């Protein structure tokens, strides 16, 4: 950008001398040369060039600062190394799934339960909406939405299938034994606490409300709390996709 500014100055045509003799003490000349008072147009050109340079420099520095902040944020998330290690859970068709099954694709993972009064449906709606926004953008890889239950006692495969029908069609539900589910939740540091049952035996499960983003290497990239909008989610996921560098050659799923 600075190069073009400089060439602009070189290309500017020679300035004509001022028309009124009162503006200049020296007699009118054909070409601009070192006269004691610079013509207004030249002064404006210099001011504009200086302003552009300063503005460009400022924008560049601000961009650098934003990049540094983003890098720092990514480093911090990576150091948390959430979701490490394998897991074994059952999906809604009864198949056993482990982490290896998800390698090669981006994953948005949410922990919840089907008897959830309001938060889980809201969060799943938001996730579905974010997916729609991402799908509308050409050239982006697909994202696999995953719902892991924190209430395996009640949320069996059939219950998850029924529940997820109302959300994005590609939503995959995962359940398992209480031990398996507890382990996965712990890997993601998700707080889970079942409340006391009432006379019907019904209870709510208090849990962290978080949506996790995993990259095609199965590494944790980001997490989104309940306050972020679908648009913010989609923007963030896209940002991660654009800055993603594979650890190893892409995994080809058989």
């Amino acid at each position: 950008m600075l190069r073009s500014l400089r060439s602009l100055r070189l290309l500017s045509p020679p300035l004509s001398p001022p028309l009124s003799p009162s503006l200049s003490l020296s007699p009118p000349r054909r070409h601009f040369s070192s006269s004691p008072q610079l013509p207004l147009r030249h002064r404006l050109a210099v001011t504009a060039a200086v302003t552009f340079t300063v503005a460009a420099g400022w924008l560049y520095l601000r961009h650098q600062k934003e990049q540094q902040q983003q890098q720092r944020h990514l480093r911090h998330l990576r150091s948390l190394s959430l979701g490490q290690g394998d897991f074994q859970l059952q999906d809604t068709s009864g198949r056993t799934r482990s982490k290896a099954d998800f390698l090669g694709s981006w994953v948005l993972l949410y922990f919840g339960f089907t008897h959830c009064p309001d938060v889980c449906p809201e969060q799943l709606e938001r996730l579905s909406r974010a997916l729609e926004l991402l799908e509308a953008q050409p050239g982006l890889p697909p994202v696999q939405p995953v719902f892991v239950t924190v209430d395996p006692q009640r949320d069996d495969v059939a219950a998850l299938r029924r529940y997820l029908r109302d959300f994005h069609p590609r939503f995959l539900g995962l359940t398992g034994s209480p031990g398996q589910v507890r382990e996965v939740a712990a890997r993601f540091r998700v707080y889970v606490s079942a409340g006391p049952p009432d006379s019907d035996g019904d209870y709510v499960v208090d849990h962290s409300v978080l949506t996790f983003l995993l990259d095609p290497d199965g590494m944790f990239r980001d997490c989104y709390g309940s306050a972020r909008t679908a648009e913010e989610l989609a923007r963030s996921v896209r940002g991660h996709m654009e800055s993603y560098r594979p650890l190893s050659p892409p995994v080809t799923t058989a």
Partner: protein
Amino acid sequence: MAAPTMEERKACWGARDEFWQCLDSHGDDAAKCEKLRRAFESRCPQQWVKHFDKRRDFLKYKKKLETEGFHPYETAGKS
């Protein structure tokens, strides 16, 4: 006991919203909104009613903090 379906959830939320609107327009006087309270309780599982009651208390408290500010000495009471 199966989890509520989407339709049941929406019916419950609708009943809750109507009840809350009634409370808002009657200055939280529950006596004036008996009928809507009963409709709310019939449409929502018991656990959800408890959850939403707590949620309402929280939202009111939050609004109070936002409009009046936090007064720790008043809430602490006499020691």
